[in-house]
């Protein structure tokens, strides 16, 4: 639904109400708000389910804390745009979107630069896990919609998308699992909530702060995606990557179980 900005214009000199919302400044306590501990590989419980979207070739839904992500996979279908690499490998197309109501502020319908960037990161993370050489001349579409964003949206989007791809019967080398982390000084918060992701520090010092997302192929032990920005020394950075990898391993069993259930529900065991 495109919005006609010309008609909904405020007075010439106007300010967004968001500027006047009181910023809650609270010094972060040792305990995290939901009772998880800092510096521990402590991910939120995950509920995952495949096959919700009947129209799609495959789909998955993930809920972790208040973060809710849904993903559907279409294809393989014939590519519209072709170049040399499409002749040998399939083309993977990822779209990452925040639903307009998913964040504290309403998101626009038009894909923002942030969403484009996250789509690219999603593509980079999923790409190594797929056997794209089995799908020459064709295209696989993955679209992820974040229904509610309470932190770590990209990480859960990666996990969700790989479940949906597996549900669609796309051949994969391995599942792809994602995990996020927020570094605060010497502590890290694994699988941060939205508040933890965005909170301003009590102190001015910007030493060792930053966010990170790691995507892992768990049984091959390969990192397929790494996205980190902040201000980190080498040592904490390396430790943070290791913590994320461990976090990914923790959600492996949930992902496996989700797929097993999906397979059994969809297909009765073959005869003979």
């Amino acid at each position, binding site marked *: 639904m495109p919005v006609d900005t010309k008609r909904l214009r405020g007075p010439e000199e106007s300010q967004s109400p968001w500027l006047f919302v009181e910023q809650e400044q609270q010094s972060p306590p040792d305990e995290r708000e939901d009772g998880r501990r800092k510096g521990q590989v402590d991910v939120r419980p995950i509920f995952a389910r495949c096959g919700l979207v009947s129209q799609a070739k495959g789909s998955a839904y993930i809920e972790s804390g208040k973060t809710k992500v849904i993903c559907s996979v279409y294809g393989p279908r014939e590519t519209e745009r072709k170049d040399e690499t499409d002749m040998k490998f399939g083309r993977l197309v990822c779209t990452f979107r925040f639903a307009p109501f998913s964040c504290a502020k309403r998101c626009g319908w038009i894909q923002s630069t942030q969403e484009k960037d996250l789509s690219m990161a999603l593509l980079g993370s999923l790409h190594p896990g797929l056997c794209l050489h089995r799908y020459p001349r064709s295209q696989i579409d993955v679209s992820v919609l974040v229904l509610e964003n309470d932190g770590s949206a990209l990480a859960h989007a990666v996990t969700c998308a790989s479940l949906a791809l597996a549900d669609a019967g796309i051949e994969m080398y391995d599942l792809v699992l994602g995990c996020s982390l927020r570094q605060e000084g010497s502590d890290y918060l694994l699988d941060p909530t939205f508040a933890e992701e965005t909170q301003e520090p009590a102190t001015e010092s910007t030493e060792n702060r930053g966010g990170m997302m790691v995507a892992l192929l768990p049984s091959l032990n390969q990192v397929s995606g790494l996205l980190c920005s902040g201000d980190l020394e080498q040592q904490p950075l390396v430790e943070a990557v290791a913590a994320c990898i461990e976090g990914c391993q923790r959600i492996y069993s949930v992902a496996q179980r989700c797929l*097993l259930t999906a397979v059994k529900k969809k297909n009765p065991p073959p005869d003979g």
Partner: protein
Amino acid sequence: MTMTSLQETDVLSSVQPITVHVITIGRLASEACAVNMSPWKVCVPGERLCSTEVCKAGSGTYIRHSFIFASLAGYVVKKNEGEELPVISVARETEAQLLPDVNAIVTCKVTSINSRFAKVHILYVGSTPLKNKFRGTIRKEDVRATEKDKVEIYKCFRPGDIVLAKVISLGDVQSNYLLTTAENELGVVVAHSEAGVQMVPISWCEMQCPRTHAKEFRKVARVQPEYLMP
């Protein structure tokens, strides 16, 4: 990954009891029990199935460092086909997405023709319907096996015909799938006359309308019994 891991609860270490979570455990635990009843082993992509010394890799698997891994989520099937090693593959009831491959027999519908080639939409690969349309091209020289230079596309295909063809190449950047009908068993299987009635083949190159008895030219296929739909 073995079946025992299904018994693990969904609880990840040190989790506070949140309502959503409790429901999750309940739901999954009951499903896990049901799952365990089945004697079939289910695998997920990336799961190591066995060494290449024990089995041969079948469909839905790939080989890495001389081990066979699953590339699909589905049931693990081992089959002995009289050879030394059994073939291990991963099966899904809904067939894995088939793509037209070289030498595959495809069923297609003619969408447009000109003097050099006929354009078609591929509808079936073997007997599996495709979810999405794929476009293909039958060039003039690939229509018949003999007298290639005398072929006229207008006398072989008409838009709307259903054609059996074989994939000869995946084509290049500019072209679509290249198909051939240069075999006795390949060619037009269903065609309608100008009166709109399905025609019956009367020779290798002619079909006749049962109502008007008008004859039209086609590259007629001798349909093999196994391709006939019941």
